[in-house]
């Protein structure tokens, strides 16, 4: 893992009407590393990811991808989004397309791969994540875990610089949670080509296994940020301690 910053969030501010959702949020995501966002529901994790994917217009601050400011309104949003992929809590697969068609849609029509190249790449990814036999199926016929893994593959198929994962396991049962988390972990296995990721999650065990850096948000502000083992095992701020204790009491650590 190099120390070059792939994604940098600087003093990000976002409000919906009079409600301030993100307040001076700053952090750096080094290339090939994973930053995990933790915090209660409503702490601003999802909004932060949506801002990074330019799905929300920010009120102040800036976001940099490879040192280029992507929140600059003068640059092309679609060009930027080609470099950032997002996986959603509710999968957001296209129900009218098969698994393979879901995966090859963007590579073919956005990235101008030929149909054969796109299919070949889709099949490689499907094999790698053990879903090859589902290629011709429609999403509705798959289990939740399989659907989410397809969504991850769909995001990977465009070779993104950064992968955003928004509570990707919240809609799944514990067994399925594990298969999805294994998939995400696999993206970090290969050190030479590890995926740069920003992950919002409620799974603390997973945060520790996959996260290089953990960022605890409360009320839209960064309360504590640091190496995952440090923040999760030895939190400094009282609010982080309270949050982790509550999670622990709920039996999720």
């Amino acid at each position, binding site marked *: 893992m190099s120390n070059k910053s792939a994604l940098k969030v*600087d*003093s990000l*501010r976002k409000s919906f009407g009079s409600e*301030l959702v993100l307040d*001076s949020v*700053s952090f750096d995501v080094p290339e090939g590393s994973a930053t995990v966002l933790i915090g209660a529901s409503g702490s601003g994790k999802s909004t932060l990811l*949506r801002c990074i994917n330019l*799905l*929300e217009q920010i*009120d*102040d*601050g*800036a976001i940099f991808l490879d040192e280029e400011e992507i*929140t*600059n*309104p*003068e640059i092309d949003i679609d060009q930027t989004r080609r470099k950032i992929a997002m996986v959603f809590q509710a999968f957001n697969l296209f129900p009218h397309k098969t698994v393979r068609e879901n995966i090859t849609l963007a590579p073919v029509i956005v990235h101008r791969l030929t149909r054969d190249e796109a299919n070949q790449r889709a099949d490689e990814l499907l094999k790698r994540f053990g879903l090859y036999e589902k290629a011709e199926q429609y999403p509705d016929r798959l289990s939740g875990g399989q659907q989410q893994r397809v969504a991850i593959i769909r995001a990977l198929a465009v070779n993104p610089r950064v992968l955003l994962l928004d509570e990707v396991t919240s809609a799944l049962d514990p067994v399925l949670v594990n298969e999805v988390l294994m998939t995400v972990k696999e993206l970090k296995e290969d050190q030479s080509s590890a995926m740069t990721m920003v992950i919002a999650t409620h799974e603390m065990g997973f945060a520790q296994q996959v996260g290089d850096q953990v960022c605890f948000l409360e009320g839209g502000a960064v309360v504590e940020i640091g190496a995952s083992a440090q923040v999760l095992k030895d939190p400094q701020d009282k609010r982080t301690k309270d949050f982790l204790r509550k999670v622990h009491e709920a039996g999720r650590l």
Partner: protein
Amino acid sequence: MSSTGSESREGRGEGVSSDGRALSSGGWSPSEREIRRRSFRRRAALRYGLIAAGSSALVLGTLLIVLVTSPGFTTLSDTFFNWVYGAQVLPKVLLGFMTNVTLTVIAASCVAIFGLAIALLRTSRSPALTPFRFLATVYVDLFRGIPMILVILLVGFGIPALRIPGLTNNVLILGTLAVIITYTAYVAEVLRSGILTVHPSQRAGARSLGLSHFQSLRHVVLPQALKRVTPPLLNDLIALIKDTGLVSILGVTDAVRAAQIASSRSFNYTPYVVAAIVFLLVTIPLTRFTDRAIRRSIERQNAQGLA
């Protein structure tokens, strides 16, 4: 460049930011970067507006000039847009239009009820209803496939020819009946397609709560289905308003017939234009109103509109 972004953080809660600017309420004022961004967006919006206005002026202006300078323009405007004559025939056209409106209200109500009944019948699964399902399918196939003008002629002239005592000879009633028969077939299919687009999981969710088949339809499936098919239903309503004009072939004096009578007396076609405008005055506001209603209901339900 990158240091400007942190100004707001430093200035927060102090009343005055580092460069002495007064802060807005909440202790935050936009950074240099955000101010630049906003002014860029403002300029972009202005540029957009100017280009839109310029291109509109160019295209519409050219069209107008071509029209006005064309050799037949004076004849054309006198034959089709003689507003003095138009004002004279307006009361008659409006009187006729009342027939269209009455007919539309009655027909639309009946079509809504019968169309829904047939759609529900065709989507039902009960084995006892099999013969009715079959008949409903035959009915839809038949009346969607026959030109409405033939249905109007068959019903309007055919039923009186039977000379069955007690059956009406009133062409207005018979004409309305023909319109209802045809449109019920169309609307039933639109409603049926709407019902089929609601995901089976919705029905499962309702049945799991103990709702009966009919209750699930009434409270869960139909409300979603209706919302989805509102635009095509509106299409059918507007088509219905216009098609009520077809009953004029039975001798009913509606707006179309009134205009026809007037123009055949004067050999001037302004009455037709007047009738067209009267129809537009009803259909365009109806379209806009429905569009807005649909958009609002979508916005209310979906949290995330953007993307």
